[in-house]
């Protein structure tokens, strides 16, 4: 089994070798390491992308807007991912960001996971009937787990999920009531002496 350190180093070098800058290669190294740690086929997708890239053109998008269409080709997942990571502080103000045609979306989504940690919010991506939820770079929930990732994501929507509970107030109260069963009902004497502090604060 390859260690994550080997995966990161080999990815960084391979990315440099296909023409990305050293700084971007470092970012890709971190992202592929992350995908492999989460059990997603990062190395496989990256390999396939670099082979494809040698034959076909991928478009670089450096400044992301609310709606993004490639001029002629599909977006390069690396340039797009790095741009997304860099611009996340301004992008999070949009309710939804749309992209048309992103190549090798698995590579791109690894950047979303890191972006989720930077802003401290969950990020949801939907494309072509698929959904992936990024939870502050702690885990990735995906309907694509154990399936082949598509090579192109055609219609992509990215949403920032405001921090909110996953449960209703009623469910919380019901659980809290159970938790209260570990508390002791205070008698008068316990009320006076149990806390240790004085009974008045007029000193």
């Amino acid at each position, binding site marked *: 089994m390859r*260690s994550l*350190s080997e995966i990161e180093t080999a990815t960084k070098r391979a990315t440099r070798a296909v023409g990305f800058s050293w700084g971007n290669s*470092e970012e890709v190294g971190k992202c592929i390491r992350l995908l492999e740690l989460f059990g997603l086929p990062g190395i496989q997708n990256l390999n396939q992308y670099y082979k494809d890239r040698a034959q076909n053109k991928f478009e670089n998008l450096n400044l992301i807007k609310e709606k993004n269409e490639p001029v002629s080709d599909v977006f390069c997942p690396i340039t797009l991912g790095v741009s997304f990571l860099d611009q996340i502080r301004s992008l999070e103000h949009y309710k939804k960001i749309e992209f048309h045609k992103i190549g090798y979306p698995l590579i791109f989504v690894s950047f979303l996971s890191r972006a989720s940690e930077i802003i401290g919010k969950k990020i949801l991506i939907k494309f072509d009937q698929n959904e992936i939820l990024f939870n502050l770079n702690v885990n990735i929930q995906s309907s694509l787990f154990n399936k082949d990732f598509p090579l192109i994501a055609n219609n992509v929507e990215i949403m920032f999920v405001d921090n909110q509970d996953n449960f209703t107030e009623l469910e919380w109260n019901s659980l809290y009531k159970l938790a209260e069963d570990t508390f002791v009902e205070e008698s008068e004497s316990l009320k006076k002496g149990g806390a240790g502090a004085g009974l008045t604060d007029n000193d």
Partner: protein
Amino acid sequence: MNIELRDPNVIMKLSRLGSFHQSKLSFLRSFLNEFKDWDYSRDLFNLDPKGFGEAVYSFKKENRVYSLVCFANKINDDERSDRVIATKWDAAFTLHDGVPTKEDIKRLKNEVPKQEVGRLSFKELTLSRANKSVRVFNHVVENLSEGKQPDLELLTKVGYLYRTTAVYGSGKFGLADRFRIKNRKEINGPFRLEMMLVYLVRQFTFDQVNHVAHHKNPKKAVKLDKQICKNLGIGNSTGLGMAPFIVNHPTLLNNWILTRETALKKIREIKHVKNEDSKLFKDCIKKSVTNITSWSTDSEYQQNKIKSLLKNVEKFINYIENDFDFKTDYAFNEIYLWLDKNVCEECIEYVVSIMMEPYSDITNPLVSNMSSEEDKYFNIPTNRTVNELKSIIEKKYPNILEINFSQKENNQNFWFISKNKEEPRLADRFEEHGSELEQPLAIARDIKKLYEKLLLSSGDLNIAEFLSSNSDLRHVVRRAFIVENFPYSEIQDNTIGKNIVPIDMLRLKLSFFGALKFDPRSDKWLRICMFQGAPLPSELKNYDEQWVYKSNMQ
């Protein structure tokens, strides 16, 4: 009194970093301190009469066990090389996490001797190999088998029976990634397990030499005297492979140096130095002279450094014996100020290291600050502005900005990774091919390039926008934001200039390991000795902390 930390623009120059010496903060000493109350044992010793076979040594505490698995092999003299291109070694080692099963040993026997071309698993933590100093090993075997102890002069000159030629950890060749073990409380300092491996290998070398001598002449053979063992270490041959590490791990480098600087600051701030502390300091300084006079090297460069160090240390001893009173307030600060004016930079750093000897209460709590969660500092704060980045560079890299990289001599060399051995190398850009594959280790040049680009950009632009059209400078943008918060994270020198002495980079790292007797074999590789004078495993529970200054075979 508040003493300022020393200026990174002075301390982080290569010639100063290349003058560092071991101290109480060094990893091999903090390893011994951490593991002194662990139970040591030799669990397996299955060598044939010639000393070939397997052995297992371990440290145990509560439920935790670390086991060194050793494989000693027969190789021909013409196959023995300290170069990283070698493919066979006298012995190969791995540190296994836990107690190895028979299946583990069988698996490791097949992989460990192959080193870089073998595959280890997450159950292995470090990997190494070593070659005999054949001349010394054979001499010791001959003498012991004849019932005599070996020639101490020869042993003193060499200092070890075996030299390691690489020690790998942190995920190399399938070894466990650091994140798997970093939260263990005994791993609270860098390179702990690498140090454990080397320390246990040292014991293996003594056991092996005794074993071979015994089988050569069972009736007459004696064991190598314990005092002699104690004063033998493990040699190490180190080439350029180690140099880029300190560039590639900026926050880690910062934490090593900052810890040392913090210790020095706290010692300089002591108002009244206790009598026993000044006595211990003076005692260590005087005894350490033996380490200088027994420092043997054929390198003219190092001989001159040693001569100068000895002369300066003697001058310092004369000063503290005759012209200095430790009853002076802030005595160590006075000493530091005197050193700064009167001795060479190697002597300053030598004495700074020894100043720490009386102060375990200062150094021990600092050791845990010497690791780094590097990933925490990886993301670039892209919401910052060009003006802010420009100001950081002006403040943190003032000397670097003065270098003119259009002059050939400032741009003479390039760092690359050798295809043959996947190891870093340095070459002349104007003489050799391959500079188009240069590694991102020319930080000074690239910082200057970044600065020049920033001067042409609008100051209000945020870094995200700046990077969208300057991706080639991303690696140094990241570093500049790191150095803003980690003042000692950057070498403040040109690592590609004509006059670079790469072994300065090696010496810096090796001094933090705790190496002694740097012996440059060229400007690109050197030999060192580790654990010479250190307590043997059986003595660990009660040892003299200042052993490093008391090395003596007699």
